[in-house]
């Protein structure tokens, strides 16, 4: 597969970013140190260039119908300027992708999808677009900067007249930012550290990036790579598509019952409703290591007797806690917070405990 470049590729190389192929794009995995970048976001402010993410506009009188048809959450509840985490269930009980639905106004929506799934999602949503909603894939035109951390809002406020503090979590405004018109300023993110995600047309991307770094200079703003993005999201217990949820895991098994609303019909909703009533056999849980060791993707999870009860889907050492943390599927009877489980770390059975998320809470 051809590896694409994001528009600011050269800027990242110049900043010392180590570029690696990820989801079909060359992406900065780190600039200095994963742990240092992680702590920058937890304590200060850092910027991720996540322009690899995909964006589709869905417009017209049939837009909401189509979104309701393909997504699990109830988009009819959205007001103008509100966003919603959701997923695209498939017909076999699994998930095509997870995504964010933005309602700009009636008949005007933006959906943001994972980079690795842009084509798959486009084809999937198009398949259900029988009434003619106007869909456009604008992924190549949009840059996305996630400005995250407790100092993010103060830095960004210097660049816009829009009152950012008045924008609630999972809400957004469209306005002038760093002198660029029509920028989406969205109170969302994948770190749990607070901050905004800034969507800007690629022709203004470098100017916007530079303005953010200039505004954050006095608080030591830093570029942050995908390495720290992963440890930050994992400390929060946020799912990563392809690891923790995929074509074979149901939203209910994946802990996404809260975005699976049976107030409307959607793909596979009848079966999912039945699954909810009957209960799921396995569940995605967060856990912390008690013994010293680091869980990794695909390691087996066992009970005290050594019986396999599931597997790890994401794992790392938490930079904040300095202990191993992870997400994994376990048989439902082992999923209660506090349950003792064992992770098979290269042949050694190491003790861990199911924990509530955020894992750093």
């Amino acid at each position, binding site marked *: 597969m051809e590896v694409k470049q994001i528009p600011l590729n050269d800027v990242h190389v110049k900043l010392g970013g180590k570029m690696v192929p990820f989801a079909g794009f060359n992406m900065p995995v780190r600039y200095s*140190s*994963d742990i240092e970048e992680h702590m920058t976001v937890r304590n200060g402010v850092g910027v991720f260039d996540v322009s690899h993410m995909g964006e589709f506009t869905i417009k017209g009188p049939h837009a909401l119908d189509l979104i309701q048809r393909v997504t699990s959450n109830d988009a009819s509840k959205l007001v103008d300027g509100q966003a919603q985490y959701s997923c695209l269930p498939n017909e076999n009980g699994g998930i095509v992708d997870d995504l964010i639905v933005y309602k700009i106004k009636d008949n005007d929506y933006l959906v943001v999808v994972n980079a690795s799934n842009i084509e798959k999602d486009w084809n999937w949503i198009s398949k259900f677009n029988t009434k003619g909603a106007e869909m456009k894939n604008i992924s190549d035109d949009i840059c996305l900067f996630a400005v995250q951390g407790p100092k993010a809002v103060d830095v960004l406020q210097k660049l816009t007249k829009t009152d950012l503090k008045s924008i609630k979590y999972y809400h957004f405004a469209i306005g002038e930012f760093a002198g660029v018109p029509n920028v989406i300023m969205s109170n969302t993110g994948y770190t749990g550290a607070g901050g905004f995600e800034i969507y800007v047309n690629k022709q203004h991307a470098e100017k916007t990036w530079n303005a953010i770094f200039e505004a954050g200079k006095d608080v030591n703003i830093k570029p942050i790579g995908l390495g720290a993005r992963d440890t930050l999201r994992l400390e929060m217990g946020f799912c990563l598509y392809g690891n923790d949820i995929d074509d074979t895991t149901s939203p209910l098994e994946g802990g996404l019952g809260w975005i699976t609303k049976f107030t409307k019909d959607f793909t596979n909703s009848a079966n999912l409703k039945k699954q909810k009533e009957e209960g799921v056999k396995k569940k995605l849980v967060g856990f912390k290591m008690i013994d010293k060791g680091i869980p990794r993707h695909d390691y087996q999870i066992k009970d005290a007797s050594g019986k396999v009860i599931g597997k790890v889907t994401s794992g790392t*050492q938490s930079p904040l806690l300095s202990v191993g943390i992870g997400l994994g599927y376990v048989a439902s009877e082992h999923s209660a917070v506090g349950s003792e489980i064992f992770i098979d770390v290269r042949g050694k059975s190491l003790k861990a405990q199911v924990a509530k998320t955020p894992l750093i809470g």
Partner: protein
Amino acid sequence: MNIPDGLKYTKDHEWIKIDGTTAIIGITDFAQSELGDIVYVDISTVGQEVNEHEVFGTVEAVKTVSDLFMPVKGKVLQVNPILDGSPEKVNEDPYGEGWMIKIELKGSTDGLLTAAQYKELIGK
């Protein structure tokens, strides 16, 4: 990239410093920089004889876990005690405080790379 002349190297990115019948082993500056922040060094082969190219332990970075391979056949005498509490020493000082094991040599050292050969291997 720091590749000291006095050491020998392997294609698996270990270095070895031979001193008579014993040797000290660690990973190279290149290896630590590719791995990123090292958070755990797990070596449980003390007292064991390990063959050349066999695994003597693992090193865990935030994102990845990698096996550590014996550059030569030897008996593992000691693990660097500082790594238990301060694995970041491997990043900070890979040829000094971040050394990993001390071994007693039990086999040939002929297959090792010189600093120049190792530099060529990693393209530096």
